[in-house]
């Protein structure tokens, strides 16, 4: 499966660049901390309200991270036309899309877990054992968001004002993912795990839809010619 081998090489390259640049992940964490501190101060010591707000706060930070990391990686690809070099060498160019989904999934999954850890600390959330389900849930939501982000990146890649267009095109697409992610996380946090599977199925359908569209359209949408 050469397409997967290529995708893994490209994902490794993306992660290496993000680790070395650090800007996007660091700014996303800074935003998360500021938002959590401000909300914590505004709400005061009311554990139930803070627990109810936590999933939405984590997801707002995650959306920002998704846009920041994606824009950063795309800018790196377009700088000095590195993308053109990849385009010429690859046998199956869809590996660029798959590689981007993989790298974004890993970055967003890890960021989401880090933001959850900060939220637990700053909002003093008392977690039940069932809260461990947040880990696989973070993985699934990261894959769903990454599939959508990589799809939109391909669609706006050759358009002027990409930094402006990316969030404008992406955020409406991610509303269902946002809702499903927040509801599933809230159910897990509140110990209502029985309500989570419905939202998980919604996330799986969204991930399959975005990934399918991405694989179908990538070569046409992202072609430099």
């Amino acid at each position, binding site marked *: 499966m050469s397409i997967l081998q290529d995708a893994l090489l490209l994902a490794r390259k993306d992660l290496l660049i993000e680790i*070395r640049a650090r800007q996007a992940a660091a700014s996303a964490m800074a935003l998360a901390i500021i938002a959590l501190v401000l909300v914590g101060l505004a709400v005061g010591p009311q554990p139930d309200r803070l627990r109810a707000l936590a999933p939405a706060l984590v997801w707002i930070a995650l959306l920002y991270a998704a846009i920041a990391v994606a824009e950063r990686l795309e800018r*790196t690809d377009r700088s000095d036309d590195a993308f053109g070099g990849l385009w*010429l060498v690859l046998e199956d160019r869809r590996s660029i899309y798959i590689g981007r989904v993989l790298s974004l999934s890993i970055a967003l999954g890890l960021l989401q877990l880090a933001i959850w850890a900060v939220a637990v600390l700053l909002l003093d959330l008392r977690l039940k054992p069932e809260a461990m389900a947040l880990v696989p849930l973070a993985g699934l939501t990261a894959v769903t968001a990454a599939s959508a982000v990589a799809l939109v990146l391909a669609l706006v890649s050759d358009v002027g004002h990409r930094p402006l267009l990316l969030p404008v095109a992406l955020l409406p697409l991610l509303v269902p993912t946002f809702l499903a992610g927040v509801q599933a996380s809230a159910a897990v946090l509140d110990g209502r795990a029985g309500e989570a599977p419905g939202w998980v199925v919604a996330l799986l359908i969204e991930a399959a839809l975005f990934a399918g569209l991405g694989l179908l359209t990538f070569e046409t949408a992202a072609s*430099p*010619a």
Partner: protein
Amino acid sequence: MNTSAPATGPSLSLHVAGVTKVFGGTVALWDVDLRCRSGELIAIRGANGSGKTTLLAIIAGLVSPSRGRVDWATTPPGLPIRIGLLGHATHLFDHLTPVENVVLAARLARRDASTALALLELLGVAEFSGRRTGTLSTGIRRRVGLARALATNPDVLLVDEPFAGLDQPAAELVAGVLADAREHGRLVVIATHDDARSRSMATRTEVLHEGSVRRLTVVPDAVAL
């Protein structure tokens, strides 16, 4: 060491047929014709803005012609053609080191990573292989970009201004590498201002005339095949 391992790809011919490119209201190329084949080193000369870079990008498939077409034929027919390009851009990732950039290209092209290291050595840039590419000077970057293009074992090598930003020894080194690529059966097309050097190494020189209508004209061969 030999730069270019013997080309394992097909014997091929290229026909640029009546290619015109218009950007907005500006005519970059007008009705350009060019025929060449494996084992040739074609030098395309012309003043700034004469369309040399655009022509290379069209041959590479990174820019679509407004009219006309680029036809490739291989023996046996229908084989895939790999194109290596060093344009005005070097197609390198700034946050990766030269060795990481070249190895990535080699692996995506299913080639041994050790070839990539040998190419950096050959082009005299091995001592910079551990530094971030973004910190390198233009001349060093150009040589790393050439190593990257060669690491993919291209059947066709397109190089825009191969001697730009290079001192005399480095320019001679690059000229030797390009001549060697031709001797190993690759088709090499360079766009250059360096008349003396291109005359000494090219098997054929073509000139892009200035003016709104530009046509490639054959100049008597400087070096017999």
